[in-house]
């Protein structure tokens, strides 16, 4: 572990044609923490996540994950896709998705061995999915669907888990269950980075917040980041939102 830093970003610029999503971003995220990425729509939250996951090629900058770059960096991470990006009609069971977490170590042709099956069982149990293992994913609720993907990340034994808006379209009860699973992950030393849009819950959920708007506006513990003057630099002057957020943050 490179001096406790999970992700180190230097001079990152991401641009889509003429549209600059992120400009010259420097960011260090410590390992073993539950980190929330906040910001208004179009602030570059997803771009940041995609750049870390190697999904968009940045115009400039270096991203290190546990001190490594390129495909060596990718080995450390698992990603939970936005629910809207998944084909829920795909013919696959919960167990089938969780087994995909073993593919990285199995490669193209390796056979699932007892240890792999055990890892899948454990991941399913921790995400509370044991009963649902043989369900087709189209037959799950929104929260169960998200937990399936988190279980896959668990089976992957990733050191860094990235989630983009995992609570979108998920009811409050499922959101809490999912949060518990993520907190357990962090407890085990995994770094979890979540793109989140709800300022009200952000204060309770995360150890650390990163506020993004075209770059990093603020970073630190929730009580520091969720200050009206800090928030207004990202969100403009939508005052009542900020005050609400502060109230719930206190």
């Amino acid at each position, binding site marked *: 572990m490179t001096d406790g830093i999970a992700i180190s970003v230097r001079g990152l610029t991401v641009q889509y044609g003429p549209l600059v999503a992120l400009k010259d971003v420097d960011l260090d995220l410590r390992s073993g923490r539950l980190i929330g990425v906040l910001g208004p729509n179009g602030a570059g939250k997803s771009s940041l996540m995609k750049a870390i996951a190697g999904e968009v090629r940045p115009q400039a900058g270096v991203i290190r994950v546990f001190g490594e770059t390129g495909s060596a960096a990718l080995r450390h991470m698992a990603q939970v*896709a936005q629910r809207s990006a998944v084909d829920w009609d795909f013919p696959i*069971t919960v167990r089938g998705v969780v087994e995909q977490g073993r593919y*990285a170590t199995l490669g193209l042709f390796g056979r699932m061995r007892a240890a792999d099956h055990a890892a899948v069982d454990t991941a399913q149990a921790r995400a509370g999915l044991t009963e649902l293992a043989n369900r087709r994913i189209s037959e799950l609720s929104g929260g169960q669907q998200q937990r399936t993907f988190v279980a896959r990340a668990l089976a992957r034994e990733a050191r860094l888990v990235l989630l983009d808006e995992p609570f979108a379209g998920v009811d409050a009860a499922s959101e809490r269950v999912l949060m518990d699973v993520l907190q357990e992950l962090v407890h085990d030393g995994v770094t979890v980075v979540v793109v989140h849009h709800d300022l009200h819950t952000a204060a309770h959920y995360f150890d650390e917040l990163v506020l993004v708007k075209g770059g990093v506006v603020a970073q630190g513990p929730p009580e520091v980041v969720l200050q009206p003057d800090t928030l207004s630099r990202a969100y403009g002057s939508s005052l009542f939102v900020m005050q609400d957020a502060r109230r719930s943050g206190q």
Partner: protein
Amino acid sequence: MNPLWLERALEFLAFEYAFVQYSALSAVVVGVMCGVSGVWMVLRGLSLVGDATAHATLPGLCLAFLLTGSSHSAVLMGGALASGLCAMAVLHGLQRWGGTRPDSSLAVVLASFFGLGVALMQRVTGSPGAARAGLQGFLLGNAASVTPAQAWVLTGMMVALIALTLLFFRALQLSTFDPSFARLSGFRPDRVRIATTALLAIVVVLAVRAVGLVLVSAMLVLPASTALLVSRRLSTTLLLSGVMGGLCGFVGAWAGYIWQGVATGPAMVVMAGLIFALVAGGRSLVAPRQQTALRGGL
């Protein structure tokens, strides 16, 4: 005295004549190939791309004949493959750089390639040796015209397709389902995408002679869609779809033998449509919860 159709139906099943054997073999093989590759196509949302590609083989078939004067199968297939791939490239270009909506670009490619094909077809029918080339057979499919050599080549291709699917199952499944996670797991989803698209073009071209280019996409979509209704695992979907494709191929060749003038392709598609209607209809009669139970081990 049995009615004529029954006599012919039994005659077919006796497999006495070599041409019956080869037409049945090729129709079954093409059905299986369409069934298996159709699953990937449907799951990747490429159903209409398959349709456009199939229609786009016509100008290639005609040009290959007009330019070479040869009706050799390899020449015609080569032409078909070239124009099918060309259509895919145009489609890709239109969607990426042309600013055309995906559905419109599909319609543009299908219509313009097929239109060109029909125009060329009229030239072909006026030229000497046209009847021998049997280009008309490519429109609606005619498994009876398949030579033994062609039937064996098709069988080899089917074996290769199944072997590739089994061998690269993991990469295919993960890249189709979640390309981002596939990349993070060390796979190359971009290569898988190119390979499956190319394979789709090859299957379309191979299937055109038996099923006909107008209806190839139906054989790619119907078995896969039927299998997807009843299975909850990809492996089961592939198996069911392949079996259903093969069964439809057999019935198609059979019907073509019993009733002369009935082309293999349409008969295959009618059979596939019937099975789909039965399964979809039957499924809608049971409640979602029971559907889960009925799926059982599938």
